[in-house]
């Protein structure tokens, strides 16, 4: 944050809008809110146009002379390609139902963060440039021409939307701000205005297969390090395979889990779970990213990054694909992938090799969510579990935006958690399930330089956690999203100190009774589990 605000200072939020008309308030691009621009080489790396150096706070953004033409041409093209865009530009009645549904508005009070106004930023240009009424009546019809200040304003607020779709839930016509943001971001990417926090992972993912740019050997090594940790903490030696042809299942998860805490504990959870049930699966160092920052750039970029999963599944000859815990990854997989990619004939309808369950809901795409997979295992009694190992945890569950509003996976993770933890508490009903709040940093806004924005956007989620923290002593926030795991710890530390963030699979593995395991006196984080101190000193050295 530019100047560190205390939570008390951040909480001074006025949700009442100013008297002045929003069109009369020029955009003020603030430090702590905006993200740094994409580095030119990261744009060139995926052949996107107009890579150049620029800064949002400078007057001149270094755009090509015909930027207006490019923007409007791109606008028209997208209107012709997406019925959603046309309808969402035309039918908003400004009823205001969405206004206080956005975490960024609630956390900042910035009236242009009301979803309706954020969409009006583009809609006003649509009216002013494309409709007769707007051209004749101008301001009176809520129309304006595209100018540089208008573009800057659009840009600024396109990166204050996490595409979480909460507003869309409450809209009487289902107007989806995420869709408007997606297409709006496509437009500004026509002349190189992406942010680096999105563009660099895109470039990395394109080349190395993952957002972090881990090279094949590093990717493998990182997972092997985690296997070492498992050996140390659990006493089981796991030897996962990579790029193995003939495996039954290809496993793909966001690369954040390979690399950063607390995601790595979730990844250790996957490893232990698969070992426990003896799953015939392989990792891939090529298709090693479930997440898809291309989705935050353009649908075309999302398609290009997503293509690797099927491509690799076909090459390895697997039967079906299992996907790890990730939010927007599952929006892309669930709602886009089956349209993005041509079907792969060698894939088969997914059947759990352990329980024999047919995953009916994935029979065409052939890709199953780890929580669906695990819930099925538990239901069939295929996991030996000791939930009391998680007794020191008081757990609540954060629905990620995308699995809830872009898929509807609400019960499976809850079923899993309730089977591996004895103390589970729901947050207030307006903040969970389909009404869940975003972590505040989704859609590629989990950078460091926009920390004020992230903390403000994270307020509604954190506030609901605080409620159960105070009421029930909740100390663990479970989630099924890599971005959640990356950003919620900061948000918790800021708003609700004393709450840890954990992936659902981490909780599963902690409760898992594995054959040949040690006394499990420490959890996957290497922390002693209260009340389970080792009986003998050697217990931990038992290799």
């Amino acid at each position, binding site marked *: 944050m530019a100047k560190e605000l205390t939570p008390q200072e951040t909480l001074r939020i006025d949700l009442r809008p100013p008297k002045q008309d929003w069109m009369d308030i020029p955009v003020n691009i603030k430090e702590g809110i905006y993200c740094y621009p994409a580095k030119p080489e990261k744009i060139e790396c995926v052949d996107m146009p107009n890579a150049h150096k620029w800064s949002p706070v400078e007057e001149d953004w270094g755009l090509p002379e015909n930027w207006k033409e490019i923007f409007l041409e791109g606008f028209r093209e997208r209107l012709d390609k997406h019925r959603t865009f046309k309808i969402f530009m035309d039918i908003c009645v*400004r009823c205001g139902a969405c206004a206080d549904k956005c975490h960024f508005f609630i956390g900042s009070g910035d009236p242009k963060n009301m979803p309706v106004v954020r969409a009006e930023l583009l809609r006003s240009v649509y009216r002013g440039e494309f409709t007769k009424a707007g051209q004749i009546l101008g301001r009176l019809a809520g129309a304006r021409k595209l100018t540089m200040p208008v573009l800057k304003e659009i840009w600024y607020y396109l990166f204050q939307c996490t595409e979480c779709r909460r507003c869309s839930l409450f809209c009487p016509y289902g107007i989806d701000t995420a869709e408007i943001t997606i297409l709006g971001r496509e437009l500004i990417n026509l002349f190189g205005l992406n942010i680096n926090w999105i563009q660099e992972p895109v470039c990395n993912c394109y080349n190395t297969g993952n957002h972090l740019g881990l090279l094949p*050997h590093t990717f493998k090594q990182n997972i092997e390090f985690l296997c070492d940790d498992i050996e140390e903490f659990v006493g089981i030696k796991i030897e996962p395979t990579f790029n193995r042809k003939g495996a039954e299942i290809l496993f793909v998860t966001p690369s954040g889990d390979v690399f950063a805490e607390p995601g790595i504990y979730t990844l250790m959870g996957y490893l232990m779970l698969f070992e426990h049930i003896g799953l015939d699966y392989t990792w891939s160092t090529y298709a090693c990213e479930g997440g898809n920052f291309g989705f935050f750039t353009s649908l075309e970029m999302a398609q290009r990054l997503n293509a690797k999963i099927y491509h690799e599944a076909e090459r390895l000859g697997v039967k079906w694909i299992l996907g790890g815990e990730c939010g927007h990854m599952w929006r892309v997989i669930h709602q886009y992938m089956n349209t993005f990619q041509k079907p792969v004939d060698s894939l088969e309808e997914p059947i759990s090799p352990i329980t024999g369950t047919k995953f009916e809901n994935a029979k*065409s795409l052939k890709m199953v969510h780890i929580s669906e997979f695990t819930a099925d295992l538990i239901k069939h009694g295929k996991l030996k579990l000791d939930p009391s190992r998680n007794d020191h945890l008081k757990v609540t569950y954060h629905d990620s935006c995308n699995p809830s509003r872009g898929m509807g996976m609400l019960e499976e993770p809850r079923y899993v958690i309730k089977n591996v933890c004895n103390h589970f508490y729901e947050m207030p009903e307006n903040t969970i399930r389909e009404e869940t709040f975003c972590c505040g940093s989704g859609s590629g806004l989990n950078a460091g330089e926009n920390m004020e924005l992230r903390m403000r956007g994270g307020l509604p989620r954190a506030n609901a956690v605080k409620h159960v923290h105070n009421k029930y002593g909740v100390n663990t926030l479970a989630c099924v999203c890599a971005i959640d795991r990356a950003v919620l710890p900061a948000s918790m530390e800021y708003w609700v100190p004393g709450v840890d963030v954990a992936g659902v699979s981490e909780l599963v593995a902690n409760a898992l009774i594995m054959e040949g395991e040690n006394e499990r006196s420490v959890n996957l984080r290497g922390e002693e589990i209260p009340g389970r101190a080792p009986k003998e000193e050697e217990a931990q050295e038992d290799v």
Partner: protein
Amino acid sequence: MAILVSLGAVLAIVVIALIGAQVGPLQYLLGILVPYAAFAIFIGGFIWRVVYWGKSPVPFRIPTTAGQEYSFPWIKRNRFDNPVKLWEVLVRMFLEVFAFRSLFRHTRAELRGGNLIYGPSKWLWLGALMFHYSFLVIALRHLRFFVQPTPEFVKTIENIDGMLQIGAPHMYLSEVMLLTGLAILLGRRFFAPRIRYISLANDYFPLFLIIAIATTGILMRFLFRVDIVGVKELVLGLASFHPTLPDGIGAMFFIHVLLVSALLAYFPFSKLMHMGGVFMSPTRNLVNNTRMKRHVNPWWTPPKFHTYEEYEEEYRDLMKEAGIPVERE
């Protein structure tokens, strides 16, 4: 500003009609030509707008899922908030169109002493529902002017609507509800700071226009009586393409008709097209079966991506060193 201009525009329509109604030949214009033109614009414009939308494909299936997905038989799914079958999505659409399901979810977020509180807030839903249903009832009741003999269901509606038998002619419940609904909707725009902030002339104008239509309609019934037989003769003439212009109908009727004509002509070019749009919104009218069934995007192009071959070419040595199997040694 937006308020004044919208109000001014509606008053201008009233004044034009008032003047026109006094001049014989202009009555022909106001009573026959303008309604015909407005109706033609309404239908033509409506079709044009829907076709304009329809020309763009729905490339991706992006329903907003508002409940548990279809997964295992032992997990209770939410059929109507997360439909996978056609009839389920039809129910979802029915609830959306006829019960304003999404608006019913409406809550109000408030920050109190550092705590966010979400309270139910049904005023918008209630106002919208009152307004739309009473408008529908009133439109249907008007069929008695358009059709001879009056269809039975119109009589039934009329009987229920006028069951209080207050005054002569009877006061209709729908009249009261329409004005109440409009008052709620307009009141929000006036007094709720956030709604006032986002309101445009495009929002005030239709509200004022419909208030004016309702007011002239009510005035015509109770205060400035017009010759109903003449009105029916004119309207029936319009609806059967044998337009006639009876004498002495009364000015209030012409004001009412010009206002309605304005609404009809304005409709296709305004936000009022949400009437058609709500049926075509891809976040509501699609089933959530994207992993069960492949959907085709008409403008699909094959992705240009970094293939495995290229990848191995770049990293073969590193992969071999790390013991990762490769295609070509």
